């Protein structure tokens, strides 16, 4: 989902309306006679009788507070963007437009990667264009068939990656680099959900262990919107 900046104007308006309705807030109309004693201070909703504040020093603690803004419910923050990737084309690898399927995790807690000729999009992570890393994974080889990412490690910086979206548009990326890691040590950067939109193309690499029917490493091609 796309995060939309909070509407300060709306919350400020709401506050103003509420203050107006309640007749409280910053009004300082109290007279000396009406001022309460220290043992009979007014309730919170009786600000109109409040004594003007005396000058007070600013506490050094004030510098340690962090204003996080308004928590007033904003419907625009709860609109879920439904655009999903549907296809992936990397001309440098002659992939054609490979189908992209939304996938979650399997019973072992691992990414549910589809068959050899499909690409899996981790649907619980960012969508293309959203802050953070969109993860697309495909096999290097599966059940004896070369996968869509058979030659992922041939990509070089600048290569174009095209992602087709469910709304009919395309998002273009440029490869920025390749990384390789042991299978059991996926880089945490893969699951980042903040910052600039990025794309991670993930497959296997390293050495094929015939006994375990598995590769030792993951190879990741990173890309940024073109």
């Amino acid at each position, binding site marked *: *989902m796309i995060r939309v900046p909070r509407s300060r104007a709306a*919350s400020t308006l*709401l506050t103003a309306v*509420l203050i107006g*309705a*309640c007749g*409280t*807030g*910053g009004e300082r109309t*109290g007279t000396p006679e009406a001022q309460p004693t220290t043992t*009979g*201070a*007014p309730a*919170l*909703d*009786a*600000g109109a*009788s*409040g*004594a*003007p504040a005396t000058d007070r020093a600013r*506490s050094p*603690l*004030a510098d340690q*507070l*962090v*204003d*996080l*803004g*308004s*928590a007033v*419910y*904003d*419907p625009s*923050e*709860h*609109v*879920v963007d439904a655009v999903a990737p549907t296809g992936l084309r990397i001309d440098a690898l002659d992939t054609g437009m490979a189908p992209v399927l939304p996938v*979650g*995790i399997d019973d072992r*807690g691992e*990414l549910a*990667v589809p068959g050899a000729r499909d690409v899996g999009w981790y649907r*619980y*992570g960012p969508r293309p264009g959203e802050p953070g890393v969109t993860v697309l*994974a495909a*096999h*290097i*080889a*599966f*059940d*004896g*068939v070369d*996968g869509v990412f058979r030659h992922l490690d041939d990509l070089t910086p600048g290569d174009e990656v095209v992602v087709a979206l469910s709304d009919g548009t395309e998002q273009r990326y440029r490869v920025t680099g390749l990384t390789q890691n042991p299978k059991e040590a996926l880089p945490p950067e893969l*699951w980042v959900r903040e910052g600039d939109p990025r794309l991670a193309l*993930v*497959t*296997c690499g390293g050495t094929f262990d015939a006994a375990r*029917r598995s*590769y030792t490493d993951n190879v990741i091609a990173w890309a940024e919107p073109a």
Partner: protein
Amino acid sequence: MPRTLTRLAAAAALTAAAWAGTASPVSAQDAGARIHLLHGIPGVAVDVEAGGEAVLEGFEFGDTQDLSAFAGQTLAGLQVKVAGTDDVAIDAGDVTLPDSGNHTVVAHLDAAGDPALAVFTNDTAAIAAGQGRLTVRHAAAAPAVDVLANGSPAFSNVENGAEGAADLPVGTISASVVPTGETEPVVIGPADLAIEDGTSLIVYAVGSLEDESLTVLTETITGLGTTPAAIQTGNSPVSDEANGLSAATLAAMAVLLGAGALGVGRLAAVRTR
């Protein structure tokens, strides 16, 4: 209304006591506490002082302040005043903040409509992949309520100061708040709530039913999700085109090599003659 002040002071004292009770020694793995302060009383701006000095001025309804920097510290002589005045609304005394855990302090109205302070401890347990956590907290001057999700009861008989919580599949739900046991009138909502992967969405019902100021504040805690443990993207060797040579090409080369070897042999044979 001295009664209100008494209640506020009592609430503040309780709060301080609760914090003192839950505070634990700082251990090496503690990264400190996360403490947010939420203003949930419509229409009243306040100033907060400590030891007679201004810590926070003009704190307005709906705003949030991060108090995490004060984790484990004791704020001496904490007072909450109606903004711009010397009118003490809450005389909290010395307040020691927790040094660990995830907490939200909410200034809100109790069921009777009197200002109160509540400290909620937020659940930061890991959330399964594909789910988000929804917590609804009753912090409004209103009787017990039911919370409907997409028209069906999700949390029942939630009273002021209490909460209902559940981990739900990601997506959008339409939430409504109704009096307990009823389906109408809808006193809050229907409002869409986005349930996001690995994110805890905390919704506070605040304001006053009688004053028709009921509304909703929200807070989110991210990073609680579960990500895939591994990505298995290969269960068979790649074809023998590893060097740009397909199996067919290799087979053809083998034939040529064989022929070449034969040729060399023939040449050698010729030379020995």
